[in-house]
């Protein structure tokens, strides 16, 4: 019997041993591949973390750790990039949060604005002011400030440059999308004013052009600030701005959530609800669920960003045929002042450099090089876009570039509709131009699956409306782009909860519109006034 006891003991021991050896092996495997000492002198090594993308397709024999883009950077800039870890795009933020919390960050990596603030507070990232000053080329410095320097300013704290913004085009507003085949069928005019749009929505709801027996005027879902089937575009038509800090005309900035214009807009929505123009169940549905009514021909009007056709295509194209026709229009206004579309700063993410990084200058070198290759394409540097064979094959190799600030003053709206209309590829300058042009041309040549691109970039697409909007200054850009203030962090959640609750109830006619005034009073009392004071303090310093 003793023997058997021993056996059981041994089994237990083996288990612990297996665990131990597993640990040992792992550590070995995790060590970076050995770098020959001679080479190490010449090459700067920086580590980062990457989000994988389902659209990135690797060439044979390449992967995230070994690929022609990383090799090209090493050859051209003398910087070797290594990956600490790779996570799927949708799980990247969670994984990054974990890495930050356990103080295990790579040399450089992309973060969101809120995380940037946290990293500064924790003193984990480097002040880049002098490195940027010394190593950024004049071309880079110019490129990063093409918007007048706002985006760079948003990465600057107490006069210290704490991050490199992943710059982008801020002029991405909302539009109203309408079923044009229904307009024709019911003999209705295009929506130039809010009154026109109301007429259209009412006609769509009562005359049921889709023949579904269950039709509404406007598609909405439970997330107010959604990019498609959201509420923001409609509110902007009443000069109301959701979750946006606006100038009140006296040099002070105020929250758009509590302005009288918001009350007007909500009143209008309540009236629409009473008339049956809004699905009574919208408040429990997410984007996809709410869109079923659009795809299924029950609704023919929605607000959405310029990319909305990529969402609409689910219902609009069937068996290689376009079964719905959509048109896009500038936001109609409820009065004689034109509607302004609310927009943010344009910087999407921020690249930060760890305090422990040995070669911060390497990151700036990568940045310099990206700006060169992205804006002046040559046969030689096509490798950064397409991989080693330098041929476009929809593999999205450009995603492998570790820093990708985009052009802040993109001219898609000026160039693409013209080029597509005239089938003239000669005026295209940027990579995005070419990609979009290529897709739109496919549609022109009969590939209906590219229907959506034509409605974005084509002669009557959403982008074609942008130049006029820029020219007439029909954008309302946020006046506050600092880090969340202390009271915001503490009270923001409750204020947003109260707002969402009362807005939905007003729209659904469960409470009278007068409740809005009560909400404004509560908002101020629960910390809103405090936040406004803090935001204005920031504004005074950063005007």
């Amino acid at each position, binding site marked *: *019997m*003793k023997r*058997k*006891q021993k056996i*059981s003991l041994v*089994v237990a021991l083996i*288990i612990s041993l*297996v*665990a131990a050896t*597993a*640990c*040992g*092996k*792992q550590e070995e495997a*995790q060590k970076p591949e050995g770098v020959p000492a001679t080479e190490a002198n010449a090459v700067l090594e920086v580590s980062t973390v990457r989000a994988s*993308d*389902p*659209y990135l397709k690797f060439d044979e024999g390449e992967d995230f750790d070994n690929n022609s883009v990383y090799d090209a950077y090493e050859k051209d800039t003398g910087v070797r990039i290594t990956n600490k*870890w*790779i*996570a*799927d*795009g*949708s*799980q990247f933020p*969670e*994984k990054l949060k*974990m890495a930050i*919390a*356990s103080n*295990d960050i790579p040399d450089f990596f992309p973060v969101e604005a809120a995380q940037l603030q946290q990293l500064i507070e924790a003193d984990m990232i480097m002040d880049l002011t002098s490195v940027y000053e010394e190593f950024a080329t004049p071309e880079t410095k110019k490129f990063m400030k093409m918007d007048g320097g706002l985006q760079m300013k948003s990465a600057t704290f107490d006069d210290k440059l704490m991050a490199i913004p992943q710059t*982008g085009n801020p002029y*991405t507003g909302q539009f109203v999308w309408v079923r044009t085949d229904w307009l024709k069928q019911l003999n209705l005019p295009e929506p130039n004013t809010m009154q026109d749009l109301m007429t259209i929505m009412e006609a769509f709801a009562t005359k049921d052009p889709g023949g579904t027996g269950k039709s509404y005027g406007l598609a909405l879902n439970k997330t107010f600030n*959604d*990019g*498609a*089937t*959201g509420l923001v575009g409609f509110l902007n038509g009443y000069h109301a701005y959701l979750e946006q800090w606006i100038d009140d005309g006296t040099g002070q900035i105020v929250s758009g959530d509590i302005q009288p214009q918001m009350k007007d807009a909500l009143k209008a929505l309540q009236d629409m609800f009473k008339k049956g123009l809004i699905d009574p169940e919208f408040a429990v549905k997410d*984007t*996809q669920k709410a*869109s*079923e*009514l659009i*795809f*299924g*021909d029950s609704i023919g009007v929605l607000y959405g*960003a*310029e*990319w909305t*056709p*990529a*969402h609409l295509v*689910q*219902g609009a194209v*069937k*068996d290689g045929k376009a079964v719905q026709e959509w048109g896009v229009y500038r936001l109609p206004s409820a009065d004689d002042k034109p509607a302004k579309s609310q927009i943010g700063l344009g910087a999407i993410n921020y690249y930060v450099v760890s305090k422990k990084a040995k070669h911060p200058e390497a990151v700036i070198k990568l940045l310099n090089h990206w700006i060169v290759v992205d804006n002046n394409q040559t046969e030689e540097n096509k490798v950064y876009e397409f991989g080693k064979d330098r041929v476009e094959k929809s593999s999205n190799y450009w995603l492998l570039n570790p820093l990708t600030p985009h052009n802040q003053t993109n001219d898609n709206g000026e160039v693409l509709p013209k080029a597509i209309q005239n089938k003239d590829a000669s005026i295209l300058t940027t990579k*995005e131009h070419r990609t979009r042009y290529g897709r739109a041309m496919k549609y022109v040549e009969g590939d209906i699956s590219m229907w*959506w*691109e034509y409605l*974005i970039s084509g002669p009557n697409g959403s982008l074609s409306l942008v130049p006029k909007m820029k020219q007439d200054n029909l954008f309302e850009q946020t006046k506050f782009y600092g880090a969340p203030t202390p009271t915001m962090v503490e009270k923001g959640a409750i204020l947003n909860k109260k707002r969402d609750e009362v807005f939905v109830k007003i729209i659904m006619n469960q409470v009278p519109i007068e409740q809005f005034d009560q909400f404004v009073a509560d908002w101020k009392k629960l910390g809103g006034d405090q936040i406004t004071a803090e935001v204005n303090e920031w504004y005074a310093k950063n005007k």
Partner: protein
Amino acid sequence: MKKTLGRRLFIGCNFLLLAAISFMCLMPIIHILAISFSSGASASAGKVTLWPVEFTTAAYENVFGKPEYLQAFWISIQRVVLGTAASMFLTILTAYPLSKDTRQFRLRTVYVWIFVFTILFNGGLIPWYMTIKTLGLIDSIWALVLPSAVQVFNIILLLNFYRNLPKELDESSRMDGAGHFTTLWKIYVPLSLPALATTGLFTMVGHWNSWFDGMILMNHPDKYPLQTFLQTIIINLDFRFLKSQDAELMIQLSDRTSKAAQIFVAAFPILIVYPFLQRFFIKGIVMGSVKE
């Protein structure tokens, strides 16, 4: 034996009631199955109920065409096999001493509470992650197996089943000179098959379904178990922060039929485990052994 009218009525009603309940549980599965065999457009428009609209197997071709899918599937199998083996071994072993009463094992109550305490209190994600990282388990299959090897709930469940075994069995075995280990393997284990099947099922299902640890503990997507991999596909886009550049991504992710097919293919292997384990739910297994 003759059945009374009341009894027959009961049997009939009982059957009907359970049939109705089973039907209610089957409905959503059929709905998802129908979506997986429908065309993308009809699924997006919400036209599919319980029968495929515009029948197609495209979604399944798409699912099986992904090399990552098979890879993730294989990792999940490994995880379930290793994880269940480790867990069951520890559960069987740990439950035995804890099932003794205080006269036989004085410190048992202290030990039980040491175990129970761990299901009530935890230090949160960060220290947990850092511990596993310090052990060097990141990116290894053992990271998915070892941290959850002790399943306290299963141990408590099993110790309750152990306790219900007749005391005479235990005593006679000890009389024969058998030690604790022999008693455990020869008497307790064979007589607790239903309980072992239950805890085994819980462990397998738990391992198969968990995805969060795979995401946190694996540094490369090619090491994801199936459910973690599925999360990368099922998770919905955040429509608030989409950029123009994401348009192409959107077109792929909005394909509901593939999601439905993937769920189905992912759930199937674990669904068939239960009917198989049901054969271990033998009535009277304990009494049979006493009579021997």
